[in-house]
């Protein structure tokens, strides 16, 4: 055996940096969420500022809590535990710092660009292409640092947590690259390379696996490290943790289509996603039980120790969310839950319970370690626990009630066969009291977060930060016991190049293959479906900028309750020119897939200026700036060219003249129509383009001679 004992130092500075960032961004992200929540019952809370209106603040909230709060939390835990599990300092201090500052810059960029309306509109992947590139670079730096540390480890056995970190690093890179394929048409603006149903499938393959590999696997790694630490007990069954890991990662990646049940995604893909989703219960619950059983014989500690309290709720919330997820993936359950607030309640069980509470537990444990002191106030931490738990309940329970209520009201028919609530507004106004309760819950949760920040600040003040912790370990006997060729191949330096080249090949290959490959398959199956006109393209980009899909879906499911309310169900062939797809995932307002022609232009104009003038009680914000801001027509050629590149068949040279003429003519027609409704508007304002787009939605198919007449309510 090698007895060559080495002395080395763990880097605590990077851990502290990420820990502070976690707290700061956590408060920012949750405050943004609260602002969004308040606007759902008090739309004026946007102060009539476009930058903080719901459609723009919602993606800011989701990005901030996922990538800034949980992201930094994950890095905090990984940078702390990985060094100790590997008995090695991080591979490169430079890469650690690069990872930290790069990540914070990305977050700042997100916090600036999302309120400004720069968004791809793809959920949890809203950031535009330059930021996407930055994310890729920083993620590769993190991965190299991770693998480098693993390679120079002084402990032969890789603890199960490390496996979870590896899965995170590898999979997030692949997901991010595949989903972020976009064609830039300007600095900060792009169109998705995929269209319609293809874009939807890629997006939710990403979206689901972002939950799996960004919010779940790294935090499971943290659970397997920090739970035994906090309880001072080994994990209940190490064997089960190994099965948990391998079972989870092999099943997770196939479950994405459950986000698209009853949409125009082919049925077999939906069923496949559903089957894999249900299978996920097994490894998830294995992991949850493993976590809870670790506390067997230590429940007396749970009573006293706030860290363990947080941990118990976190693991329980993981269990609840992973039971509910498969349940929601069953098609018949999903037919009720989809588009309602039930989904919001589900994700917040996971986010507030699992990610939030586990982060709190970890930080309460970590700060006394880093500062070589005791926690400043156990009592305050207990207050935090109960306030946050209460906040969570006040958040989740009303939203469950709201979700089920919405689903049932949308589907309710009278005895005579008419919709009981034909006006969508009735259903949303009915649950507004629940939105108020939810905001109270969110406030409590945020308050708890502030208490923690203060407690940890005082803890830090009371101790002395230890920038480096000295440790000793023997060098790993390399290639002796483990001298299999396969092992060497994996362990040698080539691994870095393998990682880097896989990333490069993925990007290169996808950029090459996708456009030519997909364009062919995008030939419309419905002859009447034509590309958007230039004015409609601009209007659609405004729809994306304002985040309309945060509240309005464009996907009518094949149920009687939906076709009676919105019109014929959506066909895959109708969205072949939609780069990106705008099916949405949530209805706070009615579906807009067949909005075209339902109301006169003037109605839309007045409705956008003040929704409550046309729809009393509406919770939609005013979009009065659309009436005054000039339409950006200068970038039209760039937009049309980019769309042609991704496969929309605009004729060559269309953007040099004909498009502009077409645009002016259509704008003049809209202005003419508005006059009929006693509205005077200039043809060069943004509202004109948006009205043109809304009036086009879902109308193409009705031109077909075979189209069946539908009852429009």
């Amino acid at each position, binding site marked *: 055996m090698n007895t060559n004992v080495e002395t080395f130092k763990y880097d605590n500075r990077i851990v502290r940096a990420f820990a502070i960032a976690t707290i700061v961004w956590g408060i920012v992200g949750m405050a943004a969420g609260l602002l969004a929540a308040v606007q759902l019952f008090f739309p004026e809370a946007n102060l009539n500022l476009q930058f903080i209106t719901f459609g723009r603040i919602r993606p800011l909230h989701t990005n901030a809590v996922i990538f800034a709060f949980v992201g930094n939390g994950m890095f905090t835990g990984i940078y702390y535990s990985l060094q100790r599990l590997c008995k090695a300092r991080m591979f490169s201090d430079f890469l650690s710092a690069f990872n930290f500052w790069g990540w914070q810059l990305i977050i700042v960029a997100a916090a600036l660009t999302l309120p400004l309306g720069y968004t791809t509109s793809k959920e949890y992947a809203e950031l535009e292409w330059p930021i996407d590139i930055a994310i890729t670079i920083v993620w590769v730096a993190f991965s190299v640092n991770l693998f480098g540390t693993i390679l120079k480890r002084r402990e032969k056995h890789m603890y199960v947590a490390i496996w979870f970190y590896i899965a995170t690093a590898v999979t997030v890179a692949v997901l991010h690259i595949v989903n972020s394929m976009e064609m830039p048409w300007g600095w900060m603006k792009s169109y998705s390379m995929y269209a319609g149903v293809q874009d939807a499938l*890629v997006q939710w393959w990403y979206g689901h696996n972002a939950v799996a590999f960004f919010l779940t696997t790294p935090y499971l790694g943290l659970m397997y490290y920090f739970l035994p630490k906090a309880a001072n007990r080994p994990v209940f069954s190490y064997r089960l943790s190994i099965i948990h890991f391998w079972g989870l990662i092999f099943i997770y990646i196939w479950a994405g289509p459950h986000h698209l049940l009853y949409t125009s995604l082919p049925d077999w893909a939906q069923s496949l996603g559903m089957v894999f989703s249900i299978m996920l219960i097994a490894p998830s619950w294995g992991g949850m039980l493993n976590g809870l059983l670790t506390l067997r014989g230590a429940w007396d500690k749970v009573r006293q120790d706030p860290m363990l309290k947080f941990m118990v709720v976190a693991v329980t919330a993981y269990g609840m969310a992973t039971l509910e997820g498969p349940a929601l993936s069953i098609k018949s359950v999903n037919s009720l839950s989809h588009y309602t607030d039930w989904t919001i309640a589900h994700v917040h069980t996971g986010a507030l319970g699992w990610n939030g509470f586990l982060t709190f537990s970890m930080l309460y444990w970590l700060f*006394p370690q880093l500062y070589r002191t005791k926690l400043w106030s156990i009592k305050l931490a207990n207050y935090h626990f109960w306030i946050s738990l209460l906040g969570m309940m006040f958040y989740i329970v009303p939203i469950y009630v709201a979700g089920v209520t919405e689903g049932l009201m949308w589907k309710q028919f009278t005895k005579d066969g008419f919709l009981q609530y034909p006006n969508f507004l009735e259903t949303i106004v009915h649950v507004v009291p629940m939105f108020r309760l939810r905001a109270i819950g969110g406030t409590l949760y945020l308050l708890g977060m502030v208490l923690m920040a203060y407690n940890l600040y005082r803890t830090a003040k009371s101790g002395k930060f230890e920038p480096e912790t000295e440790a000793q370990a023997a060098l790993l006997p390399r290639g002796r016991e483990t001298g299999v060729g396969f092992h060497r191949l994996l362990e040698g330096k080539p691994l870095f190049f393998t990682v880097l080249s896989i990333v490069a090949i993925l990007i290169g290959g996808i950029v090459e293959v996708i456009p030519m*490959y997909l364009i062919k398959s995008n030939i419309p199956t419905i002859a009447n479906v034509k590309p958007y006109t230039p004015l409609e393209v601009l209007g659609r980009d405004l729809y994306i900028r304002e985040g309309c899909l945060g509240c309005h879906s464009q996907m009518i499911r094949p149920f009687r309750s939906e076709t009676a309310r919105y019109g014929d169900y959506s066909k895959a062939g109708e969205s072949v020119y939609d780069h990106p797809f705008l099916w949405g995932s949530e209805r706070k307002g009615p579906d807009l897939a067949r909005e075209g022609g339902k109301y006169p232009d003037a109605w839309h104009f007045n409705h956008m200026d003040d929704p409550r003038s046309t729809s009393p009680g509406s919770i939609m914000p005013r979009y009065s700036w659309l009436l005054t801001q000039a339409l950006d027509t200068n970038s039209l050629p760039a937009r049309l060219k980019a769309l042609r590149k991704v496969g929309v068949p605009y004729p060559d040279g269309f953007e040099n003249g004909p498009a502009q003429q077409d645009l002016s003519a259509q704008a003049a027609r809209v202005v003419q129509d508005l006059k009929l409704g006693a509205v005077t508007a200039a043809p060069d304002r943004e509202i004109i383009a948006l009205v043109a787009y809304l009036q086009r939605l879902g109308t193409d198919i009705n031109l077909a001679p075979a189209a069946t007449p539908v009852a429009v309510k």
Partner: protein
Amino acid sequence: MSVIIILILASLAVALTFLGGFIWAVRSGQYEDTCTPAMRVLTEDPAGAKPDPLSPKHSKKP
């Protein structure tokens, strides 16, 4: 729908990478011992090298 081929290939690439990792882990004896790794986590901190100034409640040492 042909994009599903790309997704399946990407997913398979990830899955096969993990399969390789799994085979490596088993063959190199990562899972021969399923007992001590769980214990080692609790004692791996170099606190022994220093006096342990932590609150007894949160100490790693019993």
